[in-house]
Structures are given as C-alpha cells and as structure tokens.
C-alpha cells in the first residue's frame, strides 16, 4: 500500500509539474468604450498572479508565461470601470483579447493626474514632457483656442523668441535641430508665422511627447530635441463635431464612424477631419484699430484628415493627409508664404500567436516656401521627403524593446539671389538608411533603457553610430534620480541666417556641397552636424499631486553647420579665385555648447492648477574666428501658469500665464557711416556721389535687449445641454498690462517696433 501511495505521489508530482510547465500568453488592446480611443498606460493583470503590465501608446499589452488554464484578466484605468474577462490560456498558444473600458463618474482632472502618476511609475521622465489634450487646454488660449505652440513656451528649457515670427529654441538647439513628427511623419516647419499658432489642431491631438534632450534611439536625424505629436483616431461609435469662431480665426472638427464599433463587432472604420485657420489680417482692423499700420498680417489655414480602420483584434490601419498653409504679408515690404502637404499610412498589426507587435509607416511630405522682399529678387525653398519605417515591438513585464529600420529619401531645393543679385539654385537629393534598437530593462529599483542607432547618410557616405542610454533609479516611491545621454547627428541645414532673431523665411538644405571644408585649419571630411547630450536630474511625485523636478543638462554641439555670416564673395563669380571657404561658402562649420539647469513645479487639485518653470541656460558658439553667444541665449526664463475652476459645478475656469525672460543678445551698432563700398568690397570711383548708410557693427551679440515679460489671462464658461451638446465661451486678454516688449529697432531710423500690445479676444465653440 505504501508502495502504491508512493507511486501515486510521484505520478501527481510529475503531472502537476507537467501542468505547471505548460504555459501560454495573452495579449490585446485596451480602448475607451465610448469613443474607441486606445488607452495608454492602463494596468493589465491576471488574478492570482503578481505579473502586472501596462499598455503602450496604442493600448497594446502582452503577458507571457501564463500557466495554462482559465484565468481572470483584469484591466483597470483611472477614470474607467474595471474590465474583467475569463480567458482560457492554452499551452504554447497566444490568446488575444480586446478590452473596452466604460468611463466612470470621476472628474477629468483626477483622471489626468492619476494617469500622470502612472507615467511616473513606468517611464523615465528625464527631459521628457508628456502633453495631453487636457494639459494643452490648461494654458490661456490667446487665439480663443488652445494651441501646442503656446504650451511649448512654458516647458522648461524651451526659449521662444517672439510673438511675431518667433521661433523655438530647445536647450541651445535651433529650430532646424528640433525634430517634429506627426503620427510618424516629419513636419519640417510646424509653426506659423504668428508666434502662438502651430499647424496642429488641439482637437485632433491624442498626446504630444516632447524630449528636450537625451532622447532614445527611435528618434534621430536631429541633434537637439523631439516633438512627437500623435493624433487621435476618429470617434468609432458616434458622430461628433466642434465648430469654433474667435476674433482671430476659426476651427471645425468633424469625426465619426463610417462603420460603427459595437459590443459584438469591435471592428470599425472612422474618419476625422479638421480645419482651422485665421482671418486676423482682416479682422485686426475691426477689433484692434490701435495696432500699428502693419496690423497682424498673418494668415494660415490647416487641413488634416485621418481615416482609421480598426480590426476585431485591434489591428489598425490609419490613412493620413495634411495641407498646411501660411502667409505673412507686410504689404510692400515682405511677403512670406509657405505650404506643407503630405500624407501616408500607418499599419499596426500583431499576428495571431505572435509575441510581437509590428508597425509599418510610409509618408510623403512636401514643404515649399517663397519669400519676397522689396527691391530684392525672390527666394524660395523646398523640402520634400519620402519616409518609410518598419518597427517591431516586444512588450514584456521586465524587458521590452522596439527595433526599427527606416529609409528616407529627402530632397531640398533652395533658390535665392546671391549678393550680386544673381539667382542661385542649390538642389540636392539624399537617402538615409537607419536601423535602431531601443530597449527597456527593469531590475528592482533600476530602470535601464539602452539603445543604439545606426544612421547612414548617403549624401556624405557617412555612418553615424549613436549609442543612447537612459537610467532611472527609484530612491523611494516618491523620488527618482534620472539620467540620459546619447550621440546625435543630422544633415539638414537651415538657410536662415543666425543673425535673424525674427525670421519669416525658413529655408532648408541637405548635402555636403556649399559647406566650408576646413574648421580652424582642420579639414572636415563629413559635412554632418554632430552632438552629445547628458542630462541628470531628480523627479518627485508626492502626495496631493505635487510634481517637482530639477534637471541639469549639457549639450555639446561639437560639429554644427550653419548659415555663413562671413560670406563675402559670390560662389559663382569667384570659383577659381582661391578665396578661403569662409568667404565664399553659404554654410560654415561651427561648434557650440549649451548647458543649464531647469526647475519645474506642478500642483493640481480639483479646483486649482498651478505650474511654475524656471530655466537658467547658457549657450555659446565657436566659429572660424571667435566665440560668441547666439541671439537666443536667454539667461533666465520663467513661466507661471495658474488655473482655477469656480462657480456652480465648476463651470467657470480662470487661467493665467506670466512669462518673464531676460533680454536676448543682439549686436549693437558701433557707428554709422557713408558706405561707398558694395558687398564685394568693390569701390566707387566717384566719391562725390552719395553712398548708402553703412552700419559698423559692434561685437557680435555684445548687447542685451531689455527683459521680456507678459501676462495673459482667459476666462472660460461652458454650458452643457442635452444629448451632450455644449457651448463654450472664452474671453482672453493677451499682454494684459500692455508691456511694450521690443520686436526690433531699425538701425537707420532708430524706430522701435514692439511685440504685440494688449489684445483681447473672444471665442465661441459649439460641440455636438
């Protein structure tokens, strides 16, 4: 008997061991049940097991090595009811579920705040800013509509150079060094001539990830920063629309299902169309008669369309199209126009039984701009590119990775009048081949994200090998220490002069030609801009939703290609004259450093939203001859944002933003004189004739403009009607105390033109 029990025991042990070694996996997508939007960072767990994973930006999750058998899968997301489903896991097989979570009665603010806590738990926040539609709306909307361009201005480390034609400079990087993506497609010029409008309609934005330094290997081709905009998919259950009109412009968003998502059949086809634009050039005369004669001569129109096919199991195909236009028209003086057209597709699939998620994108975009100045020949620029990318995601609990390969064919054509008023064309094609691996490893309190990128630039026959690394160490549940570093490269060059504080014309160039060959007597073989970043900081996410962070950064732009301020001779006329490169070539090689420290404090309650950011930054450049500070080297930059909800059911919202920035550098005039020498150094024979007024410049950027400060406020009231209809009225005042911030001073007439004065705006929006 004893022998029989012993044998039975052995059999059970063996069978139980066999049972427990039989494992399968489960994966799936998590969506908002009302709109069908993917839910990022939702928790997915199996009852009775410790394993807990979170969904990625597409709502995708995967749990591996689940013992075979029936299990209860629970999906939870703050602001939504829990989702639970019994799933039968079979040995060696991959089960697939699609979870639709129903919204809970919870305030939006709480949901947003808790989602932020979840992000802090799972991601390394170093130099990373995740912006949701709700956070975009926390800034006073100067045009009566919130805009990404306004939000970016309050992010620590980002410097914005002005209300009119201002540009964004991120931790010492020029606009051309910022990579801007729209659903994976490069948008080479994402900001309109008027400083507080981007091409992105806030209504279509799902999320925006801004990396001000130390970004991972999946991004590249730029040496400073990344702005990654992801749009929502159109509503998969019902048609929705929003129409708005303000004293500045208009907006219209329509979305809805062509094939509706239902409980039984979660597949859908949805569409989303957006159009926004401005009529401020015409309306300024009516609403702002006190403006100077130039008024606000900016017009833009942005069209965006997206059709999304979502399969039963969450596979997704997005077709995207865009058409953005911009006009700045100072009649008789300057007329700048540009348009950006593009489109393509994004396909997301996780085949049955596969542990991987695949993403394929293909986009074509075409940017072209023209610039007309009185008495000068027109300039034009074109940048068009075909971008194809294939990515593979593996998302495990302790280890995950994304591997990708990419091919871009870029073309730039720049047409401009040379110093001798001859037309010159710079026309170049280039191919880029890229492969990268970004990984994520969690070991106890340590989160390590090593990455590597190989970027081949065919125009230079140059391979950039770029290691990247991010590390986060959790000191305790509230406090992290974060670090990031990496090497970066780019071949795109801006033809905008570094002297232009305000530039309405954004021209682009790729290719090794027309670039200085030597830098301080050293031959430079590869005409590629290169940089190294290092960032280290502390982040605290405490009780009562208090978020604090401090980050020190350094960026070494150890090779930069910029427009050449020393260019004296025409390339066409002097080809055989053996002048030094820096006197002939349109582009020059430089080096540069950017370093500083950024502080951020953010506190949210149901009624209050308080945000403060301070940046202390230093930017230097070294060209062929000298060290200097570029015109965007703002030493101190502070932003305070406050929001307060008041009234019955918190239907009123008061928002304010105050920006204080130290003066930008500028080059003073040492003196004026009668100039009888032309740009070539060729001289007049007759001194009795009248010359032009020449300016003898002081040391480059040796002076400082006065401090900039501005207060904007807005008051918003929303009325909600039956069937989900709502009316929103927003009254804003930009530059409330009418600070006269300098725009520019004419060196000859000494006439000072200021940035925009006090501007009240009123906006109405109707949502159905």
């Amino acid at each position, binding site marked *: 008997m004893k022998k029989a029990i012993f044998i039975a025991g052995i059999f059970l042990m063996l069978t139980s061991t066999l049972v427990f070694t039989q494992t399968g996996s489960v994966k799936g997508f998590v969506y908002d049940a009302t709109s069908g939007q993917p839910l990022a960072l939702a928790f997915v767990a199996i009852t009775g097991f410790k394993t807990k994973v979170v969904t990625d930006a597409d709502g995708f999750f995967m749990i591996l090595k689940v013992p075979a058998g029936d299990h209860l899968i629970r999906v939870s997301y703050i602001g939504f009811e829990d989702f639970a489903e019994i799933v039968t896991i079979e040995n060696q097989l991959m089960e697939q579920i699609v979870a639709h979570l129903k919204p809970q009665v919870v305030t939006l603010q709480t949901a947003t705040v808790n989602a932020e806590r979840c992000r802090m738990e799972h991601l390394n926040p170093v130099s990373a800013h995740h912006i949701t539609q709700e956070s975009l709306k926390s800034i006073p909307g100067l045009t009566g509509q919130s805009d990404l361009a306004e939000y970016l201005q309050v992010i620590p480390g980002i410097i914005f150079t002005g209300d009119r034609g201002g540009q964004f400079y991120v931790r010492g990087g020029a606009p051309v060094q910022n990579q801007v993506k729209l659903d994976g497609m490069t948008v080479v010029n994402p900001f309109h001539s008027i400083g507080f409008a981007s091409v992105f309609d806030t209504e279509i934005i799902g999320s925006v990830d801004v990396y001000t330094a130390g970004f991972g290997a999946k991004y590249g081709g730029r040496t400073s920063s990344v702005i990654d905009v992801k749009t929502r998919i159109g509503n998969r259950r019902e048609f929705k629309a929003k129409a708005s009109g303000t004293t500045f412009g208009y907006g219209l968003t329509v979305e809805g299902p062509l094939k509706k998502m239902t409980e039984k059949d979660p597949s859908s086809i949805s569409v989303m169309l957006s159009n926004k634009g401005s009529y401020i050039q015409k309306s300024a005369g009516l609403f702002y008669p006190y403006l100077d004669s130039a008024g606000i001569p900016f017009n833009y129109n942005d069209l965006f369309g997206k059709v999304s096919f979502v399969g039963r199991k969450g596979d997704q195909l997005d077709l995207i199209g865009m058409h953005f236009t911009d006009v700045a028209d100072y009649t008789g003086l300057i007329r700048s126009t540009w348009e950006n057209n593009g489109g393509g597709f994004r396909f997301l699939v996780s085949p049955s039984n596969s542990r991987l998620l695949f993403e394929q994108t293909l986009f074509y975009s075409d940017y072209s701009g023209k610039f007309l100045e009185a008495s000068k020949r027109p300039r034009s620029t074109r940048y068009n590119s075909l971008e194809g990318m294939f990515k593979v995601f593996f998302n495990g609990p302790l280890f995950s990775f994304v591997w990708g390969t990419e091919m871009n064919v870029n073309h730039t054509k720049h047409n401009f009048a040379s110093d001798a008023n001859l037309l010159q064309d710079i026309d170049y094609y280039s191919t880029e081949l890229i492969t990268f691996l970004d990984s994520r490893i969690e070991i106890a309190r340590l989160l390590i994200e090593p990455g590597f990128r190989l970027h081949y630039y065919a125009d230079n026959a140059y391979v950039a090998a770029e290691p990247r690394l991010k590390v986060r160490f959790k000191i305790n549940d509230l406090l992290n220490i974060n670090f990031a570093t990496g090497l970066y490269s780019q071949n795109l060059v801006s033809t905008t002069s570094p002297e232009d504080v305000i530039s309405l014309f954004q021209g682009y160039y790729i290719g090794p030609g027309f670039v200085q060959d030597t830098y301080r007597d050293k031959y430079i073989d590869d005409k590629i801009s290169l940089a190294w970043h290092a960032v280290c900081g502390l982040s605290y996410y405490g009780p009562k939703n208090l978020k604090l962070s401090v980050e020190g950064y350094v960026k070494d732009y150890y090779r930069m290609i910029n427009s050449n301020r020393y260019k004296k001779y025409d390339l066409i*006329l002097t080809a055989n004259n053996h002048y030094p490169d820096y006197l002939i070539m349109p582009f020059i090689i430089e080096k540069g450093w950017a370093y500083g420290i950024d502080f951020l404090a953010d506190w949210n309650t149901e009624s209050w939203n308080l945000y403060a950011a301070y940046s202390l930054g230093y930017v230097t450049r070294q060209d062929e001859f000298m060290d200097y500070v570029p015109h965007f080297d703002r030493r101190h930059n502070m932003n305070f944002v406050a929001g307060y909800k008041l009234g019955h059911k918190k239907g009123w919202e008061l928002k304010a933003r105050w920006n204080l920035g130290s003066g930008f550098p500028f080059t*003073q005039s*040492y003196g004026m*004189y009668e100039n009888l020498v032309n740009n070539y150094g060729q001289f007049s024979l*007759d001194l009795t004739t*009248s010359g032009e007024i020449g300016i003898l410049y002081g040391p480059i950027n040796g002076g400082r403009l006065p401090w900039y400060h501005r207060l904007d406020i807005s008051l918003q009231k929303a009325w909600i009607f039956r069937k989900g209809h709502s009316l929103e009225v927003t009254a804003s005042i930009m530059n409330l105390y009418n*600070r006269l911030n300098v725009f520019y001073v004419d060196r000859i007439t*000494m006439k000072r033109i200021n940035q925009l004065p006090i501007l009240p705006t009123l906006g109405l929006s109707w949502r159905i």
Partner: protein
Amino acid sequence: MKTIRLILSAAILWGFSVSCDNVVEMFPDNAPDTLYVIGCLDGYGGMQQVKVRKLIHGHGEGALLINDPEYYLPDSSTRVYLQDPAGILTTMNPVVYPRQTGGLVVQDSNVIWQLDNYPLIPGQKYTLKIDNPAMGQVVTSTITTLPTAAFTYPVPASVIHSKFKFTDPVKPFHIIFTPASAAIWSISLKYLDFMTNGDTLFRKATFSGQPNYGGNSGREFDLPYLFMIFNRLIQDDPKVDFRMFYRFDFLVWNSSSSAKINGGMGVFYAVHHAVLKNVCPMESFNSALADSIDTKHLKFSRIPYNGPYTDPDSTVLNPFFSILR
C-alpha cells in the same frame, strides 16, 4: 473690500508694466569719436579723391544723424596729404561739391579732398595722411597702386566698325585682357523694351564673372553661357510687347587693393579698369536669341536695333553697381 482688491490688482499690473528697464541701447556706451575715411586712388585717370567724415554713433534717427553737419567735419582744420613713392608730400585740396544726390547720404556740406592732375605710377606705394587737430586724431594708410588694365582682344579700335560672330560653337566669342591678375570682368546687355502701352525703354543689365580662359586673363562666351546670362538678368514681363537687342559692353576691373586706415576707420583703395563699349554681334546671334528654346520667352526680335541708344548707366562704371539695376 472689493474696491481695495481692484485697486491693488491694478497697482500690481501697473507695476509689472513699468518694471524692468525697457530701453534698447543701440550703441555701446564707450564708442569714441572716430574719423571715417574713404580714399580712392584711380589709375585710370589723374584725379585722386579722399572723403573724410566722422563715425556716427549718436542717439536719434540715423537718417537725420548722418546729415548732421557735425559728422562732416565743417571746421576747416582738417589737413589731407598724399605722399608719393619718392616721399614727396602733396597737400590735397578741399573742394566743396554740390549737394549730393541719390543714395541715402545726402548732405549739403559735400567736401572732398582731391588732386586733379596727379597720375599714379603703377605698382608703387602711396601714403595717405590726415590730420584733424579738432579731434586730436592723425590717420595714415599706405597702398600699392595697381597695374594698368587693358583689352588686348578685341582691340578697342576695331570694335567701332566690326561685327563679331557669337554663334560659332567651335570658336566662341571671347575677350582677352591684361593684366592676368584682373579679377573681374562684366558683360552688359543693352537692349530696348517695347511696352504694350506704346512706351519704349532703354535697358542695360550687367553680369559679372571671373576669368577662366587664356591663362586666367580672358573669358569665352559660347551661346549657352550667353543665354544663361540673358535668363539670369532679364525677367519675363507681360507688359513688354517685344524686345530688340542693341550691343554688348565689356568691362574688365583690375583687382582692387585696399589698405587699413591706421588711427581711424574706413578704407583706402586703388582701382583700375578698362572698357570696351558697343560690341556688335552678327545678325545670326539675334536670330538665335529670338528662336532658341532657352530665350524664346524673353521676346527678342530677330532684327537688331541699330538706332540711337541712350545708355541708362552711362555714368556708372563699377560693374557691381550696375548689376543691381
């Protein structure tokens, strides 16, 4: 209480609006009074000229400042001397010219220090000396004069009665000049625009380049190159009914040399140039210009213009000034 809050808020806003210095300092604080000198030694003629002014860095509107007599040294204390290679010092004479016209710098006190009949010896050193006791400044500068520039082909005397073949693909039209160091040549297209409203306009457009032919002292003009120049200089204009081509002018400009002004600011330079006016192409060029796919859009007639021509740029010799027209 509400009133107090309102007053307090208004006071804070007012405080913000006026806080921080808001003045743009366009000139450095330490900019001293400085002499600004333009000196021109012209090897082509015998007249040498020097303009002596003061660098302007006052506060106010620049266009007004630059016409302030103070910046034109109205006092008579300024002395200007030119020293030749033998060391002989000649005092330059202050000549008051009529009020300047054109440009932006138009002032009544147009004093030029000049020597009227002072031919230069090529390749020799000349020194400029300026003494301004009022400002307590002495300025000097030394320059080497340039070799003579001249056309050796076509010979200037032959141009008057000759027509040149511009359409030969084997032996294109070319110019040769001396010295070899001449840096810049220019070609001017002289033509007439017959406007749709009945007006006729004399036109002259100039293109400049560097030597690349015949030992770095000449340039050939084959037809594609010439048509490229036409296209760069002449733009389509719907108001033009048709155009008639007249002649070419060629100019060779010897490399200017310039010297630093010691003790002040400005430039002291030497120039030399040669001109070949009214080079007439054979009729085959006019036909090619009218019919070529590259230039057809410019609406040139097959028939050349041979009537009287008023040179719109007759007083401008510097190619880099005329090219901006």
